[in-house]
């Protein structure tokens, strides 16, 4: 009965205080739902993913070999313990053109046992030349079922080496479990990023070896992906596979080496053959060369002889010419002398002519005188003359006769004489013996008889002539005698003498006459003398002229001679020229012949040299090939588990981890608030019912029975709430969150949200314990009192002076409402703290939500715009030469859209400090000049910037904190090749993505004793031309020495994608926070108003308007909200730091700076929720009955 009544009271209590019951029920439900739900999200995500992976038979391990994999490899792998199944398959990257862009497509063969492809449209490829296309890629590129896609090779190997066709018909569109999100991985061809995959029939591949082997690990399917159970199984399998790697790789190498060496031997044989042919050709050439040399030498000899002859002739001509020249010289001298003589002659002639003129003048004078006197003389003379005439004629005649006769006689005598003399001589010479005779004598002897005959003839002739002359004498004497007796003479000579006497007589007479005449004649004589003189002179002159003319004639004759000789010489010269021409012709012929021969030889040699070079090249090639074969290292296997083999696989797991991190913090806060609320409610309930408790106690109920009601009440509400919370929360929250992640991982088809009992029990237990503890504590306090005390109203709480009152200035200016409100805040401490905590919690949750978004979303921005400011990194192939690297750097530099480049060395190092060690990227720029353009070293917390010139060793922030080192501490670098080195950290710089240790090149050299060999180039695009970066990257990938190009923009995009899904999570957080805020505020306000009903009624009675009454209450709420919000900001910040550190993935540091807008939004949201609650409260206030004021205090 007793129990029954209590039970009835219990049920009545619930019905009566339905609002309180429901509010505890709901807040517990909410807290539990949130706690269990968010926590369950992590395993549910994994389960959903795992279900998908198992369903599509996603491989557990992928094995790739640098030189392909064979059927033997597959078998060997299958034989390894712990391996359930292995299957070899083919895949490759190819290029295809979609629209105007070239994109990389991953072509993979469909497999029997692994990685089932799901068809969302069309069907699976069934034969060669058909393909199923990646759904996302089809969407982005516009391909549809029925279209064809044409592939092209992205490297030097032709596509035909790998694929049987380059045109594929798209027969289906679908997805592969290999690609659970947007990322398709990277490639070494095209722009370096795979845009999508196509799945084809294995028949479309024509590779000799498998490109990869998919492996299923025994029992791995039973484990949930991403869990330790799964990871340890696959790790063990990976280890086991790596154990057989060496053996398999050696076998594979041997296979390749054998094949290559066979080919090489063939090549060597060909080369040897060629080399023999070349040797033959060479000896032939040598023969031809010597023959040509011989022939040419002969021809040269002949030509040189002819030349010698010609030279002699030339000498002769030269001599002749010299003589001629001498002769000409002489002639010229003579001619000069002659000319001077002629000149003398001319001058003499002139003188002569002058004298002649004088003489002529004198003669004229004389002739005048003569004409006057002469006739007289003439008369006398005539008379004498007549006598004389006669005489003279006779004399002359006689004389002539006499003379003629005597001369004939004389001549005759002479001839006789000569005859005699000759005869005498002849006889004399004849006497001399023939042998002793001189030539002259011989001659004479020979000539003489002739001569003598001639002389005798002359003698005869002369004798004749004398006879005739004597006859003429007699006749003349007879004629003379006729003149008178005086004139008769015996001989002519007598006649002459006689006649001459007569003559003398006449002469005397004549003398007189002649005296006069003489006078005249003297004068005349004078003239005549002059004339004679002149004549003589003229004669002399004439003579000399004669002589000159004769000389001239001689010279002319000599000239003629010279001329004739000259012409002779000229003809000689002409001959010579002809000869020379002939020789020249001979030479040119010779040269031509020689040139031709040389040409032929040269050609032959060139051909041989060519052949030799080719041969040498071939030999080199062979040597190189041999070297390469020798160099062929053991191929390497890449044994990859899912997380290293699949692009986005890990991301999904990371997101699940992130959810766990969120689940560790948020629900706890939420739950704490919920627990506090139910605690307040229960405390309040117990306090309210103190009179009842007192009464029951007074009636004699034991403590347990009394407390039982409240405990049962709390338990019912809490358990009910918990059950509802678990049922609702564990379904809805994981579903929402996985649904949010499906934005990214849209291929995971089913969201599996099983109940996770552990979280349910955990949450319920905590909730029940909290409320029970609160209830028991409250009850215990009340039950400890005696009934009488309980039945009295509790002593009214004293008004208190508060600190602010001491500040009179402020206090005086406050009106009473404010004073009251402020005092109220202080007075109801529990309410104050509860409200502040509730509002603060709500605010904090939102700050964390927004802040998480800020901190994560800011990463790419900070990392790639203010720290690593380069736009892309180009990685070199391993082991290329310094020149090739420079060449790539030059290629980068030559791109017009690139503003600068920097060669760097980047490598992974194990860095150790104390007990912790981690993988850190060592980065060494090649030069320090423009490092600042690519990397910005600065502190996050202090306004300090660093440079590698000053600080030689700079470590990134997260690495430093993970390693627990500070500036000045020492860390150990460990690298397989370079051993262990210690460095001291000079600075710690802000960094968000990855871990880096920056060393200056000088320090690197100092440390490792060698230059840092660059293995990549960072480059930066010009402002506004960043959209060309993929084109630039594509061109760079065209260089065979470029391994890869990675763009910061794509990292940024990928991050952004990944973080998008966080948005929804944050929305969930904010809505939950809002609900929390609402429930908290509503509860507390309700309690507040209930507690102060009387007071409020009183002020209503006093005449406060409704709004004034509301304001009276709101003032407190506003103050509490503000205080709570400020506390929430602080709490949120602290919580955020904690969350960030918890949520952070190993190699990422989140931003630490909250955006002011995040505070603002959180604050506005909080204010909004608060205002909403106050608005609801307004109606509650309005309903307060003033009559309450008349009631007694309870």
């Amino acid at each position, binding site marked *: 009965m007793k129990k029954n009544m209590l039970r009835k009271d219990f049920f009545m209590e619930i019905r009566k205080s339905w609002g309180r019951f429901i509010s505890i029920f709901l807040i517990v439900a909410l807290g539990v739902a949130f706690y269990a739900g968010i926590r369950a999200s992590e395993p549910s995500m994994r389960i959903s993913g795992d279900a998908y992976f198992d369903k599509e038979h996603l491989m557990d391990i992928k094995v790739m070999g640098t030189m392909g994999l064979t059927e033997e490899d597959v078998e060997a792998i299958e034989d390894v313990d712990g391996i359930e199944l292995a299957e070899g398959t083919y895949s490759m990257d190819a290029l295809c053109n979609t629209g105007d862009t070239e994109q990389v497509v991953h072509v993979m063969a469909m497999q029997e046992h692994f990685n089932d492809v799901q068809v969302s449209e069309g069907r699976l490829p069934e034969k060669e030349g058909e393909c199923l296309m990646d759904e996302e890629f089809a969407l982005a590129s516009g391909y549809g079922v029925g279209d064809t896609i044409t592939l092209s090779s992205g490297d030097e190997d032709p596509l035909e080496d790998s694929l049987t066709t380059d045109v594929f018909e798209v027969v289906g569109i679908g997805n592969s479990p290999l690609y659970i999100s947007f990322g398709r991985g990277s490639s070494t061809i095209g722009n370096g990023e795979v845009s999508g995959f196509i799945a084809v029939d294995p028949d479309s591949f024509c590779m000799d070896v498998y490109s990869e082997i998919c492996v299923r690990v025994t029992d791995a399917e039973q484990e949930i992906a991403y869990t330790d159970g799964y990871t340890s199984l696959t790790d063990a399998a990976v280890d086991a596979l790596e154990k057989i790697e060496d053996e398999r790789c050696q076998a594979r190498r041997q296979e390749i080496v054998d094949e290559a060496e066979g080919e090489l031997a063939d090549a060597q044989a060909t080369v040897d053959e060629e080399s023999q042919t070349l040797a033959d050709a060479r000896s032939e050439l040598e023969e031809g060369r010597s023959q040509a040399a011989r022939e040419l030498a002969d021809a040269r000899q002949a030509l040189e002889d002819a030349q010698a002859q010609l030279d002699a002739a030339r000498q002769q001509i030269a001599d002749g010419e010299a003589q001629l020249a001498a002769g000409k010289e002489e002639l010229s001298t003579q001619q000069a002398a002659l000319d001077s003589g002629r000149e003398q002659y001319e001058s003499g002639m002139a003188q002569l002519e002058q004298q002649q003129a004088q003489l002529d003048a004198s003669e004229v004078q004389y002739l005048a005188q003569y004409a006057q006197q002469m006739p007289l003389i003439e008369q006398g003379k005539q008379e004498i003359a007549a006598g004389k005439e006669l005489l003279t004629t006779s004399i002359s005649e006689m004389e002539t006769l006499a003379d003629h006769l005597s001369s004939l006689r004389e001549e005759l005598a002479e001839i006789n004489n000569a005859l005699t003399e000759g005869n005498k001589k002849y006889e004399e010479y004849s006497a001399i013996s023939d042998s002793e005779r001189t030539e002259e004598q011989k001659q004479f002897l020979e000539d003489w008889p002739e001569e003598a005959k001639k002389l005798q003839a002359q003698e005869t002739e002369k004798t004749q002539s004398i006879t005739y002359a004597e006859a003429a004498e007699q006749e003349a004497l007879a004629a003379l005698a006729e003149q008178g007796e005086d004139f008769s003479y015996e001989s002519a000579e007598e006649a002459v003498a006689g006649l001459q006497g007569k003559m003398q007589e006449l002469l005397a007479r004549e003398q007189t006459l002649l005296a006069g005449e003489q006078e005249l004649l003297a004068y005349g004589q004078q003239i005549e003398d002059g004339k004679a003189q002149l004549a003589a002179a003229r004669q002399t002159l004439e003579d000399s002229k004669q002589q000159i003319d004769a000389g001239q004639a001689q010279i002319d004759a000599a000239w003629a001679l010279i001329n004739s000789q000259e012409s002779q010489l000229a003809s000689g010269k002409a001959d010579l020229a002809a000869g020379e021409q002939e020789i020249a012709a001979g030479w040119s012929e010779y040269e031509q012949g020689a040139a031709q021969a040389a040409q032929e030889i040269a050609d032959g040699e060139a051909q041989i040299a060519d052949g030799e070079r080719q041969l040498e090249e071939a030999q080199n090639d062979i040597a190189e090939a041999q070297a390469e074969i020798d160099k062929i290292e053991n191929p390497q296997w890449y044994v990859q588990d899912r997380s290293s083999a699949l692009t986005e696989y890990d991301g999904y797991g990371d997101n699940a981890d992130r959810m766990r991190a969120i689940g560790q913090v948020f629900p706890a806060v939420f739950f704490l608030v919920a627990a506090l609320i139910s605690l307040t409610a229960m405390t309040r309930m117990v306090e309210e019912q103190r009179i009842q408790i007192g009464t029951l106690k007074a009636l004699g109920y034991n403590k347990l029975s009394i407390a039982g009601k409240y405990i049962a009440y709390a338990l019912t509400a809490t358990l009910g709430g918990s059950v509802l919370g678990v049922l609702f929360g564990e379904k809805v929250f994981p579903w929402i969150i996985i649904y949010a992640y499906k934005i990214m991982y849209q291929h995971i088809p089913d969201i599996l949200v099983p109940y996770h009992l552990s979280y349910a029990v955990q949450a319920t237990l905590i909730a029940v314990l909290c409320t029970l503890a609160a209830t028991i504590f409250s009850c215990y306090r009340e039950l400890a009192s005696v009934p009488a005390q309980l039945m009295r109203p509790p002593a009214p709480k*004293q008004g208190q002076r508060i600190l602010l009152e001491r500040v009179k200035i402020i206090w005086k200016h406050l009106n009473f409402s404010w004073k009251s409100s402020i005092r109220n805040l202080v007075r109801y401490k529990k309410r104050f703290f509860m409200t502040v905590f509730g509002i603060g919690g709500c605010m904090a949750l939102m700050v964390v939500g927004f802040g998480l978004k800020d901190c994560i979303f800011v990463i790419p921005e900070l990392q790639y715009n203010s720290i690593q400011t380069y736009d892309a990194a180009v990685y070199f192939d391993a082991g290329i030469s310094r020149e090739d690297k420079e060449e790539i750097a030059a290629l980068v530099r030559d791109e017009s859209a690139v503003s600068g480049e920097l060669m760097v060395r980047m490598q992974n190092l194990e860095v150790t400090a104390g007990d912790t060690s981690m993988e850190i990227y060592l980065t060494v720029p090649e030069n320090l000049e423009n490092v600042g353009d690519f990397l910005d070293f600065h502190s996050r917390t202090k306004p300090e910037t660093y440079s590698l010139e000053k600080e030689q060793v700079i470590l990134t922030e997260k690495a430093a904190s993970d390693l627990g080192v500070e500036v000045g501490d020492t860390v150990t670098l460990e690298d397989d090749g370079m051993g262990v080195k210690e460095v001291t950290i000079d600075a710690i710089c802000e960094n968000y993505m990855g871990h880096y240790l920056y060393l200056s090149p000088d320090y690197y050299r100092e440390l490792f004793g060698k230059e840092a060999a660059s293995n990549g180039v960072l480059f930066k695009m010009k402002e506004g031309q960043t959209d060309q970066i993929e084109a630039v990257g594509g061109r760079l990938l065209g260089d065979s020495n470029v391994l890869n190009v990675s763009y910061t923009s794509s990292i940024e995009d990928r991050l952004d994608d990944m973080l998008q899904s966080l948005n929804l999570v944050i929305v969930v957080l904010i809505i939950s926070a809002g609900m929390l805020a609402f429930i908290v505020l509503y509860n507390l306000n309700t309690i507040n108003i209930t507690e102060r009903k009387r007071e409020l009624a009183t002020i209503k009675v*006093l005449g*406060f308007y*409704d709004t004034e009454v509301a304001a009276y209450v709101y003032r407190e709420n506003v103050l509490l909200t503000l205080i709570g919000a400020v506390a929430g900001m602080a709490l949120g910040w602290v919580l955020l730091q904690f969350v960030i550190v918890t949520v952070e993935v190993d190699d990422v540091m989140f931003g630490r700076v909250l955006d002011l807008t995040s505070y603002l939004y959180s604050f506005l949201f909080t204010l909004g929720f608060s205002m909403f609650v106050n608005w609801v409260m307004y109606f509650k206030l309005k309903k307060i009955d003033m009559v309450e004021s*008349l009631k*007694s205090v309870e």
Partner: protein
Amino acid sequence: MSEFVSLRDVKKIYHMGEIDIAAANGITFDIRKGEFAVVVGPSGAGKTTVLNILGGMDTATSGEVWIDGQDITKYKGKELTAYRRDDIGFVFQFYNLIPNLTALENVELALQICRDPLDAREVMEHVGLGERLDNFPAQLSGGEQQRVAIARALAKNPKLLLCDEPTGALDYNTGKAILKLLQDTCRQRGMTVILITHNSAIAPMADRIIRIKNGRAESIETNPHPVPVETIEW
């Protein structure tokens, strides 16, 4: 003019399901300005209803209530509040002071909303609490608290001072002192005071005694010679 407060056939009927319960069933009385009126009656007679209606805390179902020439039954929400604010001073049985305001502040709280208030300190002097201005209610005795309440009501300078069993929670002597204060206030300030009590012993001190019974004004008598409080015993 002389009828400062005038109730005409005031009815207050509560509908409780099928049944109508008349808390006031046609109450009619008048009170002159400056009178000290006492409304007496046993519990449940309807005096609280009268008080509520006079105080503007409740409205009559029918009838007229004239206060200084205004019919307040016509008033609605805001007007009623304004009426309470400006015309009425209220003294509660349980004082109803704001616990976390000092005595003076409690008075001032009322003053801040009123048009023509008196000086708070002066009023406090008047009620004899000149020394306890800065004490919180919890630090005051019941009588002192009631004095503060009276001061709070007076300071508003109301037309009408309504007192609901002001001595109900007080001991005999203190109660008498409070009654004296009220009487003095009425006499000295010419304040119209309506005191509601179940204690008919107090009646002789009033100028007018209204007896309420079963929702009606059973008798209204004027007392031409009210006795001083000191002489009253109960």
